[in-house]
């Protein structure tokens, strides 16, 4: 019953958004709460029942459930065709269809669940802000788009959701549109995402053109059919293009730059969109296309390397940032890097697992930081915090749990997922892939350090608050603390779903996802006989001592990070010195300025800064094209005009003096000259003519008389 009406899940929040759009301005806050929060609560409950019903439907086989509501593009009977790459035709058919399988079930649950908690939290956080209904309208619209994205059964529907969440992200980053920095950040997010979206749509359409269907099921089935070689260049290109899209949406190198700036939006938005849900859309899309990626080892390597580099790069920046939300933003980028590292080494389930646990603890961290900011009357700079441990105890406790989770302390959620990723990185491919393990390991150390740095600077160290702020510090209302507590419980427990075999668990999470992912690529060898070719030993389940060693090492890394942070910041007074700044000032400057990436982009891509006299990038291109336009195009136009004028001057002269002068006026002048004697007889005085006539008559008379 629920499963058959799965399309209602995105429609609940859509209803809320539409209501806010048309009537929001006139509604009381209580009504806004009832409609918008209610819509998401209903969606969550509905989603829970749907997933329960689905598990009965699938019976543990992971058989996907598909529901086509109507044909959106193309014709339902397949009369509208397009030509595939091999020259055969395939039906052009895009449905408003919904797909529920283990992968989308997981996303469905945590998106609606975390989304619901953040909606509730927002009623407290945004209580004193203007544009209340606008905020909730956008938030509901986001939920609609995100649910469309994860429930879509084909690439075009996914793209609708993909663009929808991008739009909502833009709207919500720019929520404080009167602040210049907010609207700039919104534009930045939108434009950078546009680059990724271009890659995504190209990749998706390449797949459609190559494999002949828009539907995930068909595409994955075709990729697994064994008709394609591993390393098929077109599939590789498609996978790489899809990954460009994932880089944009999920903030990977080199397109991650928008995410830290996205912190200009209200904190619940950062928690929901820029930490828990939207930024994982790239991971979802790659995981969704796993059968294609497995056939493209180059793309997989790219994903793994980009993921690992992003993880360590963002973590290094996070080490020294002072804005509490920026630290968390870089942490998000770094954790997303982990997820892509997992996907890249073929450990799809581990990557998804990390998405799942990360959604809880990162949402909690953001909401906690929002609670801190709320308590500090809007202060975000950790240099002006400190000593909040006993002033806002609930926020402190829950955030501490989240910190333990993200740092990977046993038995909190992050431990299981991060450890799984590191273990898979180490074991699944071997060889040079182990370098990636070292990078991931270093990142884990940094993660522990910057997270405990955040905790110490905010909660433990002596107070550095100004007197006014200190006076107003207060714990947040129930509507905010209750979601924090629930998320804290999830941050502890979510990891237990994937309790590994090595620790005596059964790793139910991976079992649940198993049917979705292609572990090995199936290729067709000659004689039409299909054979399995393992592209490395994926997701190995066997337990060996190395796994325990690695587990111990990552715990040790978390411990070391914790100890270093404690030593450096426990007693951080009003003018504490960053340890990195003291030891390596050059490195500190580099990290503090985020490796000067934004500046570099300004030089190379946007052209807001000049290299000497040369301006590169978009503005440079604009200037160059303006120069080209005014000098070359307009110059050519003007030159042509000049030539025309010269020719026409000549032509005028010719016309005036030769045609008119010689040919036309010449005969006339001649005629006038010849007619001059004749004119002398015609002087125009009628009476003279009469006189002459009379004289003539008299003359005749005299002549005849005298003759």
């Amino acid at each position, binding site marked *: 019953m629920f499963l058959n009406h799965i399309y209602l899940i995105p429609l609940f929040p859509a209803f809320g958004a539409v209501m806010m759009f048309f009537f929001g301005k006139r509604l009381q806050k209580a009504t806004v709460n009832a409609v918008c929060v209610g819509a998401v609560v209903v969606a969550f409950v509905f989603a829970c029942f749907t997933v329960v019903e689905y598990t009965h439907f699938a019976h543990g086989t992971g058989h996907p459930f598909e529901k086509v509501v109507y044909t959106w593009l193309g014709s339902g009977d397949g009369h509208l065709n397009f030509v595939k790459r091999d020259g055969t035709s395939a039906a052009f058919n895009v449905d408003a269809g919904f797909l529920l399988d283990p992968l989308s079930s997981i996303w469905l649950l945590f998106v609606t669940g975390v989304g619901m908690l953040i909606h509730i939290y927002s009623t407290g956080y945004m209580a004193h802000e203007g544009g209340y209904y606008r905020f909730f309208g956008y938030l509901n619209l986001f939920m609609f788009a995100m649910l469309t994205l994860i429930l879509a059964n084909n690439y075009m529907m996914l793209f609708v959701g993909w663009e929808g969440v991008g739009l909502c992200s833009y709207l919500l980053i720019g929520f404080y549109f009167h602040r210049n920095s907010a609207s700039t950040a919104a534009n930045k997010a939108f434009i950078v995402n546009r680059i990724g979206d271009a890659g995504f749509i190209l990749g998706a359409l390449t797949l459609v053109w190559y494999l002949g269907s828009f539907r995930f099921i068909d595409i994955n089935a075709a990729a697994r059919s064994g008709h394609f070689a591993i390393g098929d260049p077109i599939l590789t290109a498609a996978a790489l293009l899809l990954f460009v899209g994932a880089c944009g949406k999920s903030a990977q190198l080199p397109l991650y730059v928008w995410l830290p700036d996205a912190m200009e939006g209200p904190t619940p938005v950062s928690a929901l969109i820029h930490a828990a849900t939207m930024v994982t859309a790239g991971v979802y899309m790659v995981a969704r296309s796993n059968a294609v990626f497995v056939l493209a080892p180059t793309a997989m390597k790219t994903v793994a390397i980009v993921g690992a580099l992003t993880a360590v790069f963002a973590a290094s920046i996070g080490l020294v940032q002072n804005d509490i939300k920026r630290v968390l933003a870089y942490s998000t980028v770094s954790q997303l890097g982990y997820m892509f590292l997992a996907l890249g080494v073929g450990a799809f389930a581990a990557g998804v697992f990390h998405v799942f646990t990360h959604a809880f603890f990162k949402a909690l961290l953001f909401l906690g930081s929002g609670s801190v900011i709320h308590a500090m009357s809007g202060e975000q700079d950790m240099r002006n915090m400190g000593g909040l441990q006993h002033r806002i105890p609930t926020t402190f406790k829950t955030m501490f749990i989240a910190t333990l989770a993200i740092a990977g302390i046993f038995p909190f959620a992050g431990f299981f997922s991060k450890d799984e990723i590191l273990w898979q990185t180490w074991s699944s491919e071997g060889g040079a892939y182990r370098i990636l393990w070292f990078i991931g390991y270093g990142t884990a150390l940094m993660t522990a350090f910057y997270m405990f740095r955040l905790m110490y600077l905010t909660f433990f160290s002596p107070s550095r608050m100004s007197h006014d702020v200190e006076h107003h510090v207060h714990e947040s209302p129930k509507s905010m603390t209750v979601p924090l507590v629930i998320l804290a419980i999830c941050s502890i427990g979510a990891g237990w779903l994937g309790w590994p075999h090595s620790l005596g668990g059964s790793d139910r999470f991976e079992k649940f996802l198993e049917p979705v992912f292609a572990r090995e690529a199936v290729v067709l060898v000659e004689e039409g006989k299909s054979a399995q070719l393992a592209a490395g030993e994926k997701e190995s389940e066997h337990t060996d001592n190395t796994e325990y060693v690695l587990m111990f090492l990552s715990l040790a890394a978390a411990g070391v990070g914790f100890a270093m942070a404690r030593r450096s910041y426990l007693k951080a007074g009003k003018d504490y010195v960053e340890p990195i700044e003291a030891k390596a000032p050059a490195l500190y400057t580099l990290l503090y300025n985020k490796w000067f990436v934004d500046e570099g982009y300004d030089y190379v891509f946007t052209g807001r800064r000049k290299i000497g006299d040369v301006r590169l990038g978009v503005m440079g291109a604009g200037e160059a094209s303006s120069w080209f336009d005014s000098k070359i195009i307009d110059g050519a136009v003007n030159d042509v005009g000049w030539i025309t004028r010269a020719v026409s001057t000549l032509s005028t002269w010719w016309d005036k003096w030769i045609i008119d002068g010689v040919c036309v006026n010449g005969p006339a002048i001649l005629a006038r000259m010849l007619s001059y004697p004749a*004119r002398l007889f015609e*002087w*125009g*005085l*009628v*009476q003279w003519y009469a006189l002459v006539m*009379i004289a003539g008559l008299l003359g005749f008379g005299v002549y005849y008389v005298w003759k």
Partner: protein
Amino acid sequence: MADITTLHYLVVAAALFVLGVIGVLTRRNVVIVLMSIELILNAVNLNLVAFSHMWGNLHGQMFTIFIVVDAAAEAAAGLGILIAFFRNRETINVDEIDLLKW
């Protein structure tokens, strides 16, 4: 007193004719020119009537009636043209009526 003969009429008519011709040739005012033309025409009329009397039939008188009608028509047309012309040029001086002269 001698009788008034045809010759007398002819002399008077010739005098009238010459006066008319002189008027036409010398006056610059078109109205005067038209009046002079009437004099010429009436000189002719006088001749015709005189000859009619001399011959004792009515042919000449009949012509005279025609000429009187013709003169009236000519005066009407001429004065009409004259008024139209005066409206355009504000002159009736015959020397200045030279639009067709090149």
